[in-house]
Protein backbone atom coordinates (compact mmCIF):
# COMPACT_ATOMS: atom_id res chain seq x y z
CA UNK A 1 0.00 0.00 0.00
CA UNK A 2 1.16 3.48 -0.77
CA UNK A 3 -0.53 5.45 1.99
CA UNK A 4 1.60 7.78 4.05
CA UNK A 5 1.68 7.03 7.80
CA UNK A 6 -0.75 9.78 8.83
CA UNK A 7 -3.16 8.63 6.18
CA UNK A 8 -3.74 5.45 8.11
CA UNK A 9 -6.49 5.64 10.74
CA UNK A 10 -6.48 2.05 11.97
CA UNK A 11 -3.23 0.13 11.99
CA UNK A 12 -3.28 -3.52 12.92
CA UNK A 13 -0.02 -5.40 13.39
CA UNK A 14 0.57 -9.08 14.08
CA UNK A 15 -2.91 -9.54 15.48
CA UNK A 16 -3.49 -12.91 17.10
CA UNK A 17 -6.72 -13.88 18.81
CA UNK A 18 -7.99 -17.16 20.20
CA UNK A 19 -11.40 -18.35 21.33
CA UNK A 20 -10.48 -21.04 23.81
CA UNK A 21 -7.95 -23.08 21.88
CA UNK A 22 -9.35 -22.09 18.47
CA UNK A 23 -7.23 -19.65 16.55
CA UNK A 24 -9.44 -16.94 15.03
CA UNK A 25 -6.68 -14.58 13.90
CA UNK A 26 -3.09 -15.50 13.34
CA UNK A 27 -0.82 -12.66 12.37
CA UNK A 28 -3.19 -10.20 10.73
CA UNK A 29 -1.75 -6.90 9.44
CA UNK A 30 -4.05 -4.19 8.14
CA UNK A 31 -3.94 -0.50 7.35
CA UNK A 32 -7.30 1.18 7.12
CA UNK A 33 -6.96 4.46 5.23
CA UNK A 34 -8.49 7.66 6.55
CA UNK A 35 -11.49 9.07 4.75
CA UNK A 36 -12.10 5.97 2.65
CA UNK A 37 -14.55 3.09 2.67
CA UNK A 38 -12.73 -0.12 3.47
CA UNK A 39 -14.51 -3.42 3.13
CA UNK A 40 -13.32 -6.47 5.03
CA UNK A 41 -14.75 -9.58 3.47
CA UNK A 42 -14.61 -13.22 4.26
CA UNK A 43 -16.79 -16.27 4.65
CA UNK A 44 -19.12 -16.48 7.66
CA UNK A 45 -17.37 -17.44 10.84
CA UNK A 46 -13.94 -16.12 9.85
CA UNK A 47 -14.08 -13.57 12.63
CA UNK A 48 -15.24 -10.36 10.96
CA UNK A 49 -17.42 -9.34 13.90
CA UNK A 50 -14.62 -10.35 16.23
CA UNK A 51 -12.26 -8.05 14.34
CA UNK A 52 -14.57 -5.06 14.85
CA UNK A 53 -14.82 -5.85 18.55
CA UNK A 54 -11.03 -5.97 18.74
CA UNK A 55 -10.80 -2.57 17.05
CA UNK A 56 -13.42 -1.16 19.43
CA UNK A 57 -11.56 -2.49 22.45
CA UNK A 58 -14.35 -4.85 23.53
CA UNK A 59 -12.03 -7.82 23.14
CA UNK A 60 -8.31 -8.09 23.88
CA UNK A 61 -5.91 -9.68 21.41
CA UNK A 62 -3.61 -12.47 22.54
CA UNK A 63 -0.79 -10.81 20.65
CA UNK A 64 -0.25 -7.89 18.35
CA UNK A 65 -1.50 -4.32 18.41
CA UNK A 66 -4.44 -2.31 17.17
CA UNK A 67 -3.85 1.42 16.81
CA UNK A 68 -6.68 3.82 16.14
CA UNK A 69 -5.68 7.38 15.30
CA UNK A 70 -2.25 6.73 16.74
CA UNK A 71 -3.48 5.29 20.05
CA UNK A 72 -2.92 1.67 21.01
CA UNK A 73 -6.49 0.65 21.83
CA UNK A 74 -5.53 -2.09 24.27
CA UNK A 75 -3.05 -0.01 26.26
CA UNK A 76 -5.51 2.81 27.00
CA UNK A 77 -6.98 3.42 30.44
CA UNK A 78 -10.72 2.87 30.72
CA UNK A 79 -11.39 6.61 30.56
CA UNK A 80 -9.19 7.08 27.51
CA UNK A 81 -10.79 4.09 25.81
CA UNK A 82 -14.25 5.55 26.41
CA UNK A 83 -13.08 8.90 25.07
CA UNK A 84 -11.81 7.16 21.95
CA UNK A 85 -15.07 5.27 21.55
CA UNK A 86 -16.96 8.55 21.44
CA UNK A 87 -15.13 9.15 18.18
CA UNK A 88 -15.94 5.68 16.83
CA UNK A 89 -19.44 4.77 15.78
CA UNK A 90 -20.43 1.16 15.43
CA UNK A 91 -23.40 -0.27 13.68
CA UNK A 92 -24.21 -3.68 15.08
CA UNK A 93 -25.64 -6.43 12.94
CA UNK A 94 -28.90 -6.31 14.91
CA UNK A 95 -28.95 -2.55 15.28
CA UNK A 96 -28.74 -2.94 19.06
CA UNK A 97 -31.30 -0.21 19.67
CA UNK A 98 -32.41 0.24 23.27
CA UNK A 99 -35.79 -1.46 23.26
CA UNK A 100 -37.37 0.64 26.00
CA UNK A 101 -36.69 3.96 24.23
CA UNK A 102 -38.41 5.47 21.20
CA UNK A 103 -36.58 6.09 17.94
CA UNK A 104 -36.10 9.72 18.92
CA UNK A 105 -34.75 8.88 22.37
CA UNK A 106 -32.43 6.25 20.94
CA UNK A 107 -30.78 8.79 18.66
CA UNK A 108 -30.77 11.36 21.44
CA UNK A 109 -29.21 8.89 23.88
CA UNK A 110 -25.50 9.48 23.12
CA UNK A 111 -26.08 13.24 22.98
CA UNK A 112 -27.77 13.24 26.37
CA UNK A 113 -25.08 11.02 27.88
CA UNK A 114 -22.07 12.85 26.54
CA UNK A 115 -22.92 16.45 25.76
CA UNK A 116 -24.31 19.22 27.92
CA UNK A 117 -26.58 20.38 25.12
CA UNK A 118 -30.02 21.77 25.90
CA UNK A 119 -33.07 19.70 25.00
CA UNK A 120 -33.96 22.07 22.16
CA UNK A 121 -30.49 21.71 20.63
CA UNK A 122 -30.68 17.95 21.02
CA UNK A 123 -34.08 17.94 19.35
CA UNK A 124 -32.72 19.78 16.34
CA UNK A 125 -29.69 17.50 16.03
CA UNK A 126 -31.77 14.35 16.36
CA UNK A 127 -34.24 15.51 13.72
CA UNK A 128 -31.37 16.30 11.35
CA UNK A 129 -29.79 12.89 11.87
CA UNK A 130 -33.12 11.14 11.38
CA UNK A 131 -33.78 13.20 8.27
CA UNK A 132 -30.47 12.01 6.84
CA UNK A 133 -31.59 8.38 7.11
CA UNK A 134 -35.12 9.21 5.93
CA UNK A 135 -36.86 8.38 9.21
CA UNK A 136 -37.76 11.75 10.67
CA UNK A 137 -41.42 10.74 10.46
CA UNK A 138 -40.81 7.57 12.47
CA UNK A 139 -39.43 9.31 15.54
CA UNK A 140 -42.31 8.37 17.84
CA UNK A 141 -42.11 4.65 17.04
CA UNK A 142 -40.63 2.08 19.39
CA UNK A 143 -37.89 -0.26 18.12
CA UNK A 144 -40.29 -3.21 18.17
CA UNK A 145 -42.42 -1.39 15.60
CA UNK A 146 -39.58 -1.04 13.08
CA UNK A 147 -38.64 -3.36 10.25
CA UNK A 148 -35.11 -4.71 10.22
CA UNK A 149 -34.03 -2.21 7.59
CA UNK A 150 -35.53 0.73 9.47
CA UNK A 151 -33.93 -0.38 12.73
CA UNK A 152 -30.56 -0.42 11.05
CA UNK A 153 -31.06 3.07 9.67
CA UNK A 154 -32.05 4.36 13.11
CA UNK A 155 -28.95 2.71 14.51
CA UNK A 156 -26.95 4.45 11.81
CA UNK A 157 -28.43 7.82 12.80
CA UNK A 158 -27.50 7.07 16.40
CA UNK A 159 -23.99 5.96 15.46
CA UNK A 160 -23.30 9.30 13.76
CA UNK A 161 -25.04 11.40 16.41
CA UNK A 162 -21.76 12.45 18.01
CA UNK A 163 -20.10 13.08 14.62
CA UNK A 164 -17.46 10.38 14.98
CA UNK A 165 -14.27 10.20 12.95
CA UNK A 166 -14.96 6.64 11.91
CA UNK A 167 -17.83 4.25 11.75
CA UNK A 168 -17.77 0.47 11.70
CA UNK A 169 -20.52 -1.45 9.99
CA UNK A 170 -21.14 -5.09 10.84
CA UNK A 171 -22.81 -6.81 7.89
CA UNK A 172 -24.93 -3.80 6.98
CA UNK A 173 -26.58 -5.56 4.04
CA UNK A 174 -27.67 -8.92 5.38
CA UNK A 175 -31.41 -9.43 5.51
CA UNK A 176 -32.22 -6.27 3.55
CA UNK A 177 -34.59 -6.18 0.63
CA UNK A 178 -33.15 -4.77 -2.61
CA UNK A 179 -34.60 -1.30 -2.03
CA UNK A 180 -33.36 -0.74 1.50
CA UNK A 181 -30.10 -2.32 0.37
CA UNK A 182 -29.77 0.35 -2.29
CA UNK A 183 -30.69 3.05 0.23
CA UNK A 184 -28.08 1.82 2.67
CA UNK A 185 -25.36 1.59 0.05
CA UNK A 186 -26.03 5.20 -0.91
CA UNK A 187 -26.21 6.34 2.70
CA UNK A 188 -22.92 4.79 3.64
CA UNK A 189 -21.18 6.39 0.70
CA UNK A 190 -22.85 9.76 1.32
CA UNK A 191 -22.01 9.80 5.02
CA UNK A 192 -18.46 8.87 4.23
CA UNK A 193 -17.95 11.61 1.69
CA UNK A 194 -20.08 14.39 3.17
CA UNK A 195 -18.95 14.04 6.78
CA UNK A 196 -15.38 13.02 5.86
CA UNK A 197 -15.74 9.86 7.88
CA UNK A 198 -13.66 6.76 7.68
CA UNK A 199 -15.84 3.74 7.08
CA UNK A 200 -14.96 0.16 7.90
CA UNK A 201 -17.42 -2.38 6.69
CA UNK A 202 -17.33 -6.10 7.27
CA UNK A 203 -19.49 -8.14 5.01
CA UNK A 204 -19.86 -11.34 3.14
CA UNK A 205 -22.05 -9.53 0.62
CA UNK A 206 -19.46 -9.29 -2.07
CA UNK A 207 -21.44 -7.40 -4.69
CA UNK A 208 -22.74 -4.60 -2.47
CA UNK A 209 -19.69 -4.18 -0.32
CA UNK A 210 -17.47 -4.30 -3.36
CA UNK A 211 -19.55 -1.70 -5.15
CA UNK A 212 -18.93 1.06 -2.62
CA UNK A 213 -15.59 0.10 -1.13
CA UNK A 214 -12.43 1.89 -2.07
CA UNK A 215 -10.23 -0.73 -0.55
CA UNK A 216 -10.85 -4.38 0.12
CA UNK A 217 -9.30 -6.85 2.55
CA UNK A 218 -10.14 -10.50 2.27
CA UNK A 219 -9.89 -12.65 5.38
CA UNK A 220 -9.79 -16.39 5.55
CA UNK A 221 -8.43 -18.95 7.97
CA UNK A 222 -7.28 -16.27 10.36
CA UNK A 223 -5.18 -14.42 7.83
CA UNK A 224 -5.45 -11.68 5.26
CA UNK A 225 -5.38 -13.66 2.03
CA UNK A 226 -5.67 -10.73 -0.34
CA UNK A 227 -6.07 -6.98 -0.41
CA UNK A 228 -6.16 -4.15 -2.83
CA UNK A 229 -8.38 -1.76 -4.68
CA UNK A 230 -11.87 -3.14 -5.08
CA UNK A 231 -11.80 -3.00 -8.88
CA UNK A 232 -8.43 -4.73 -9.20
CA UNK A 233 -9.14 -7.73 -7.04
CA UNK A 234 -11.87 -9.25 -9.17
CA UNK A 235 -9.51 -9.11 -12.16
CA UNK A 236 -6.12 -9.88 -10.78
CA UNK A 237 -6.66 -11.48 -7.38
CA UNK A 238 -5.56 -14.99 -6.53
CA UNK A 239 -7.65 -18.03 -7.50
CA UNK A 240 -9.04 -18.03 -4.02
CA UNK A 241 -10.04 -14.37 -4.19
CA UNK A 242 -11.67 -14.64 -7.56
CA UNK A 243 -13.64 -17.68 -6.54
CA UNK A 244 -14.79 -15.92 -3.38
CA UNK A 245 -15.73 -12.73 -5.19
CA UNK A 246 -17.61 -14.58 -7.91
CA UNK A 247 -19.25 -16.90 -5.40
CA UNK A 248 -18.62 -20.08 -7.39
CA UNK A 249 -18.87 -23.32 -5.42
CA UNK A 250 -15.85 -24.94 -7.11
CA UNK A 251 -12.32 -23.89 -6.47
CA UNK A 252 -9.95 -23.70 -3.56
CA UNK A 253 -12.66 -22.55 -1.09
CA UNK A 254 -14.44 -25.64 0.24
CA UNK A 255 -18.22 -25.40 0.51
CA UNK A 256 -18.39 -28.33 2.93
CA UNK A 257 -17.37 -28.24 6.54
CA UNK A 258 -14.62 -30.81 6.96
CA UNK A 259 -16.14 -34.29 7.35
CA UNK A 260 -15.53 -37.92 6.50
CA UNK A 261 -17.04 -39.25 3.28
CA UNK A 262 -20.83 -39.14 3.08
CA UNK A 263 -21.05 -42.89 2.42
CA UNK A 264 -19.37 -43.67 5.72
CA UNK A 265 -21.86 -41.52 7.59
CA UNK A 266 -24.83 -43.04 5.81
CA UNK A 267 -23.71 -46.63 6.30
CA UNK A 268 -22.87 -46.23 9.94
CA UNK A 269 -25.02 -48.42 12.17
CA UNK A 270 -26.33 -46.82 15.26
CA UNK A 271 -25.29 -49.02 18.13
Amino acid sequence: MSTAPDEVLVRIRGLRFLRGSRVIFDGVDMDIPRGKVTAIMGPSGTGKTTLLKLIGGQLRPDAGTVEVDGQDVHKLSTDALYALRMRMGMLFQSGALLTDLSVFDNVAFPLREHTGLTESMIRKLVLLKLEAVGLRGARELMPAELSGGMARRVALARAVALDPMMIMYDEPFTGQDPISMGVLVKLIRQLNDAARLTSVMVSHDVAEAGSIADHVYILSGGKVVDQGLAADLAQHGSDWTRQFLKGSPDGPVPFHYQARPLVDDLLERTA
Partner: protein
Amino acid sequence: MIRVLASLGRAGIGAVGGVGRAGVLLVAMFAGLWELLKRPLLLVEQVYSVGTLTMVIIAVSGLFVGMALGLQGFYILSQFGAEATLGVMVSASLVRELGPVLTALLFAGRAGSALTAEIGLMKATEQLAGLEMMAVNPIRRVLTPRLLAGVIALPLLAALFSALGVLGGWYVGVGLLGVDDGTFWAQMQAKVDWYDDVINGLIKAAVFGFACTWIAVYQGYDCVPTSEGVSRATTRTVVHSALAVLGLNVVLTALMFGN
Protein backbone atom coordinates in the same frame (compact mmCIF):
# COMPACT_ATOMS: atom_id res chain seq x y z
CA MET B 1 -16.45 -42.98 40.78
CA ILE B 2 -13.73 -40.88 39.18
CA ARG B 3 -16.38 -39.38 36.94
CA VAL B 4 -18.54 -38.44 39.90
CA LEU B 5 -15.56 -36.79 41.57
CA ALA B 6 -14.64 -34.99 38.39
CA SER B 7 -18.13 -33.62 37.90
CA LEU B 8 -18.28 -32.61 41.55
CA GLY B 9 -14.98 -30.84 41.12
CA ARG B 10 -16.18 -29.11 37.98
CA ALA B 11 -19.37 -27.97 39.72
CA GLY B 12 -17.28 -26.70 42.63
CA ILE B 13 -14.94 -24.76 40.37
CA GLY B 14 -17.95 -23.37 38.51
CA ALA B 15 -19.56 -22.21 41.73
CA VAL B 16 -16.38 -20.57 43.01
CA GLY B 17 -15.88 -18.89 39.64
CA GLY B 18 -19.45 -17.63 39.71
CA VAL B 19 -19.04 -16.14 43.16
CA GLY B 20 -15.81 -14.52 42.02
CA ARG B 21 -17.43 -12.97 38.94
CA ALA B 22 -20.38 -11.78 41.01
CA GLY B 23 -17.91 -10.13 43.41
CA VAL B 24 -16.03 -8.41 40.60
CA LEU B 25 -19.35 -7.19 39.20
CA LEU B 26 -20.34 -5.84 42.62
CA VAL B 27 -17.15 -3.78 42.86
CA ALA B 28 -17.76 -2.45 39.36
CA MET B 29 -21.32 -1.52 40.31
CA PHE B 30 -20.15 0.33 43.42
CA ALA B 31 -17.84 2.37 41.22
CA GLY B 32 -20.96 3.75 39.57
CA LEU B 33 -22.56 5.02 42.79
CA TRP B 34 -20.86 8.39 42.56
CA GLU B 35 -22.20 9.05 39.07
CA LEU B 36 -25.63 7.95 40.21
CA LEU B 37 -25.64 10.66 42.87
CA LYS B 38 -25.38 13.22 40.10
CA ARG B 39 -28.31 11.69 38.21
CA PRO B 40 -30.85 10.72 40.86
CA LEU B 41 -33.59 10.48 38.24
CA LEU B 42 -32.13 7.17 37.02
CA LEU B 43 -32.61 5.79 40.52
CA VAL B 44 -36.12 7.17 40.95
CA GLU B 45 -37.11 5.54 37.66
CA GLN B 46 -35.92 2.15 38.87
CA VAL B 47 -37.52 2.38 42.32
CA TYR B 48 -40.75 3.29 40.58
CA SER B 49 -40.50 0.40 38.16
CA VAL B 50 -39.77 -2.12 40.92
CA GLY B 51 -42.57 -0.62 43.01
CA THR B 52 -45.21 -0.83 40.29
CA LEU B 53 -44.19 -4.40 39.54
CA THR B 54 -44.52 -5.66 43.09
CA MET B 55 -46.78 -3.39 45.14
CA VAL B 56 -50.10 -5.11 44.47
CA ILE B 57 -48.90 -8.66 44.99
CA ILE B 58 -47.15 -7.65 48.20
CA ALA B 59 -50.14 -5.75 49.57
CA VAL B 60 -52.51 -8.63 48.89
CA SER B 61 -50.12 -11.24 50.28
CA GLY B 62 -49.57 -9.15 53.40
CA LEU B 63 -53.27 -8.97 54.02
CA PHE B 64 -53.77 -12.73 53.64
CA VAL B 65 -50.78 -13.64 55.79
CA GLY B 66 -51.99 -11.27 58.50
CA MET B 67 -55.45 -12.80 58.45
CA ALA B 68 -54.07 -16.33 58.74
CA LEU B 69 -51.84 -15.20 61.60
CA GLY B 70 -54.83 -13.65 63.32
CA LEU B 71 -56.76 -16.91 63.12
CA GLN B 72 -53.93 -19.18 64.23
CA GLY B 73 -52.87 -16.77 66.94
CA PHE B 74 -56.36 -16.53 68.30
CA TYR B 75 -56.84 -20.30 68.54
CA ILE B 76 -53.55 -20.83 70.33
CA LEU B 77 -53.65 -17.79 72.58
CA SER B 78 -57.25 -18.32 73.62
CA GLN B 79 -56.29 -21.72 75.04
CA PHE B 80 -54.28 -19.82 77.65
CA GLY B 81 -56.79 -17.01 77.90
CA ALA B 82 -54.20 -14.71 76.39
CA GLU B 83 -56.08 -13.51 73.33
CA ALA B 84 -55.51 -9.92 74.47
CA THR B 85 -51.92 -10.26 73.29
CA LEU B 86 -53.03 -11.17 69.76
CA GLY B 87 -51.94 -7.75 68.47
CA VAL B 88 -48.43 -8.27 69.81
CA MET B 89 -48.14 -11.73 68.37
CA VAL B 90 -49.33 -10.71 64.91
CA SER B 91 -47.30 -7.53 64.61
CA ALA B 92 -44.09 -8.87 66.14
CA SER B 93 -44.00 -11.91 63.90
CA LEU B 94 -44.72 -9.73 60.90
CA VAL B 95 -42.17 -6.97 61.42
CA ARG B 96 -39.43 -9.27 62.70
CA GLU B 97 -39.72 -12.27 60.40
CA LEU B 98 -42.57 -12.75 58.02
CA GLY B 99 -42.66 -9.25 56.58
CA PRO B 100 -39.05 -9.07 55.42
CA VAL B 101 -38.73 -12.76 54.47
CA LEU B 102 -41.97 -13.16 52.54
CA THR B 103 -41.59 -9.77 50.87
CA ALA B 104 -38.10 -10.76 49.74
CA LEU B 105 -39.34 -14.09 48.37
CA LEU B 106 -42.16 -12.41 46.48
CA PHE B 107 -39.76 -9.70 45.30
CA ALA B 108 -37.36 -12.31 43.92
CA GLY B 109 -40.14 -14.08 42.07
CA ARG B 110 -41.66 -10.96 40.60
CA ALA B 111 -39.06 -8.19 40.32
CA GLY B 112 -35.84 -10.24 40.50
CA SER B 113 -36.77 -12.58 37.70
CA ALA B 114 -37.98 -9.66 35.57
CA LEU B 115 -34.66 -7.90 36.19
CA THR B 116 -32.66 -10.93 35.11
CA ALA B 117 -34.75 -11.34 31.97
CA GLU B 118 -34.44 -7.66 31.11
CA ILE B 119 -30.67 -7.54 31.48
CA GLY B 120 -30.21 -10.96 29.85
CA LEU B 121 -32.22 -9.84 26.83
CA MET B 122 -30.24 -6.62 26.64
CA LYS B 123 -27.14 -8.77 26.48
CA ALA B 124 -28.59 -11.18 23.93
CA THR B 125 -29.69 -8.34 21.63
CA GLU B 126 -26.29 -6.61 21.86
CA GLN B 127 -27.77 -3.62 23.68
CA LEU B 128 -25.11 -3.85 26.37
CA ALA B 129 -22.33 -4.09 23.78
CA GLY B 130 -23.98 -1.20 21.96
CA LEU B 131 -23.82 0.91 25.11
CA GLU B 132 -20.15 0.12 25.50
CA MET B 133 -19.45 1.23 21.96
CA MET B 134 -21.36 4.46 22.65
CA ALA B 135 -18.85 5.00 25.44
CA VAL B 136 -21.48 4.37 28.10
CA ASN B 137 -20.52 1.88 30.80
CA PRO B 138 -23.43 -0.59 30.93
CA ILE B 139 -22.59 -1.71 34.47
CA ARG B 140 -22.81 1.82 35.82
CA ARG B 141 -25.65 2.99 33.61
CA VAL B 142 -27.88 -0.09 33.75
CA LEU B 143 -26.91 -2.24 36.75
CA THR B 144 -25.97 0.21 39.50
CA PRO B 145 -29.32 2.07 39.57
CA ARG B 146 -31.18 -1.24 39.66
CA LEU B 147 -29.09 -2.57 42.54
CA LEU B 148 -29.60 0.51 44.64
CA ALA B 149 -33.29 0.62 43.76
CA GLY B 150 -33.67 -2.91 45.14
CA VAL B 151 -31.98 -1.94 48.42
CA ILE B 152 -34.31 1.04 48.78
CA ALA B 153 -37.50 -0.61 47.58
CA LEU B 154 -37.47 -3.78 49.66
CA PRO B 155 -37.71 -2.12 53.10
CA LEU B 156 -40.59 0.03 51.81
CA LEU B 157 -42.34 -3.01 50.43
CA ALA B 158 -41.72 -4.98 53.63
CA ALA B 159 -43.22 -2.12 55.64
CA LEU B 160 -46.26 -2.21 53.39
CA PHE B 161 -46.51 -5.97 53.80
CA SER B 162 -46.36 -5.73 57.60
CA ALA B 163 -48.80 -2.83 57.78
CA LEU B 164 -51.40 -4.64 55.73
CA GLY B 165 -50.67 -7.84 57.62
CA VAL B 166 -51.46 -6.10 60.93
CA LEU B 167 -54.69 -4.80 59.42
CA GLY B 168 -55.57 -8.33 58.28
CA GLY B 169 -54.87 -9.72 61.74
CA TRP B 170 -56.89 -6.94 63.32
CA TYR B 171 -59.84 -7.60 61.02
CA VAL B 172 -59.92 -11.30 61.88
CA GLY B 173 -59.14 -10.91 65.59
CA VAL B 174 -61.18 -7.84 66.43
CA GLY B 175 -63.71 -7.82 63.66
CA LEU B 176 -64.62 -11.48 63.45
CA LEU B 177 -63.46 -13.18 66.65
CA GLY B 178 -64.30 -10.51 69.17
CA VAL B 179 -60.93 -9.52 70.64
CA ASP B 180 -61.17 -6.13 72.31
CA ASP B 181 -60.15 -3.35 69.95
CA GLY B 182 -58.42 -1.16 72.54
CA THR B 183 -56.39 -4.01 74.02
CA PHE B 184 -55.30 -5.18 70.59
CA TRP B 185 -53.62 -1.86 69.81
CA ALA B 186 -52.54 -0.96 73.33
CA GLN B 187 -50.70 -4.26 73.84
CA MET B 188 -49.07 -3.87 70.46
CA GLN B 189 -47.87 -0.36 71.28
CA ALA B 190 -46.55 -1.46 74.64
CA LYS B 191 -44.69 -4.57 73.55
CA VAL B 192 -43.42 -3.97 70.03
CA ASP B 193 -40.28 -1.88 70.21
CA TRP B 194 -39.52 0.70 67.54
CA TYR B 195 -35.81 0.03 67.42
CA ASP B 196 -35.54 -3.64 68.38
CA ASP B 197 -38.35 -4.84 66.20
CA VAL B 198 -39.25 -2.35 63.49
CA ILE B 199 -35.82 -0.99 62.62
CA ASN B 200 -34.20 -4.41 62.77
CA GLY B 201 -36.90 -5.74 60.48
CA LEU B 202 -36.24 -2.95 58.00
CA ILE B 203 -32.51 -3.59 58.14
CA LYS B 204 -33.21 -7.23 57.36
CA ALA B 205 -35.32 -6.16 54.41
CA ALA B 206 -32.57 -3.91 53.08
CA VAL B 207 -30.05 -6.76 53.33
CA PHE B 208 -32.44 -9.08 51.50
CA GLY B 209 -33.04 -6.41 48.87
CA PHE B 210 -29.31 -6.11 48.33
CA ALA B 211 -28.85 -9.89 48.07
CA CYS B 212 -31.81 -10.50 45.76
CA THR B 213 -30.99 -7.64 43.40
CA TRP B 214 -27.31 -8.50 43.30
CA ILE B 215 -28.19 -12.07 42.37
CA ALA B 216 -30.72 -10.89 39.77
CA VAL B 217 -28.44 -8.43 37.97
CA TYR B 218 -25.49 -10.81 38.13
CA GLN B 219 -27.51 -13.66 36.62
CA GLY B 220 -28.73 -11.38 33.83
CA TYR B 221 -25.31 -9.93 33.11
CA ASP B 222 -23.53 -13.30 33.23
CA CYS B 223 -26.10 -15.35 31.33
CA VAL B 224 -25.52 -17.20 28.09
CA PRO B 225 -26.90 -14.68 25.59
CA THR B 226 -29.54 -16.87 23.98
CA SER B 227 -33.23 -17.28 24.76
CA GLU B 228 -32.51 -20.56 26.51
CA GLY B 229 -29.68 -18.98 28.49
CA VAL B 230 -31.92 -16.14 29.63
CA SER B 231 -34.66 -18.47 30.78
CA ARG B 232 -32.20 -20.59 32.74
CA ALA B 233 -30.74 -17.50 34.35
CA THR B 234 -34.22 -16.37 35.37
CA THR B 235 -34.87 -19.68 37.12
CA ARG B 236 -31.50 -19.49 38.86
CA THR B 237 -32.31 -16.01 40.12
CA VAL B 238 -35.44 -17.22 41.90
CA VAL B 239 -33.81 -20.32 43.38
CA HIS B 240 -30.60 -18.63 44.50
CA SER B 241 -32.48 -15.64 45.91
CA ALA B 242 -34.81 -17.83 47.94
CA LEU B 243 -31.88 -19.77 49.41
CA ALA B 244 -29.94 -16.60 50.11
CA VAL B 245 -32.88 -14.93 51.84
CA LEU B 246 -33.70 -17.91 54.05
CA GLY B 247 -30.05 -18.47 54.94
CA LEU B 248 -29.34 -14.81 55.65
CA ASN B 249 -32.49 -14.62 57.73
CA VAL B 250 -31.18 -17.24 60.16
CA VAL B 251 -27.92 -15.37 60.53
CA LEU B 252 -29.57 -11.97 60.94
CA THR B 253 -32.14 -13.25 63.41
CA ALA B 254 -29.38 -14.78 65.51
CA LEU B 255 -27.42 -11.53 65.44
CA MET B 256 -30.34 -9.18 66.11
CA PHE B 257 -32.60 -11.07 68.45
CA GLY B 258 -30.14 -13.66 69.83
CA ASN B 259 -29.83 -12.20 73.32
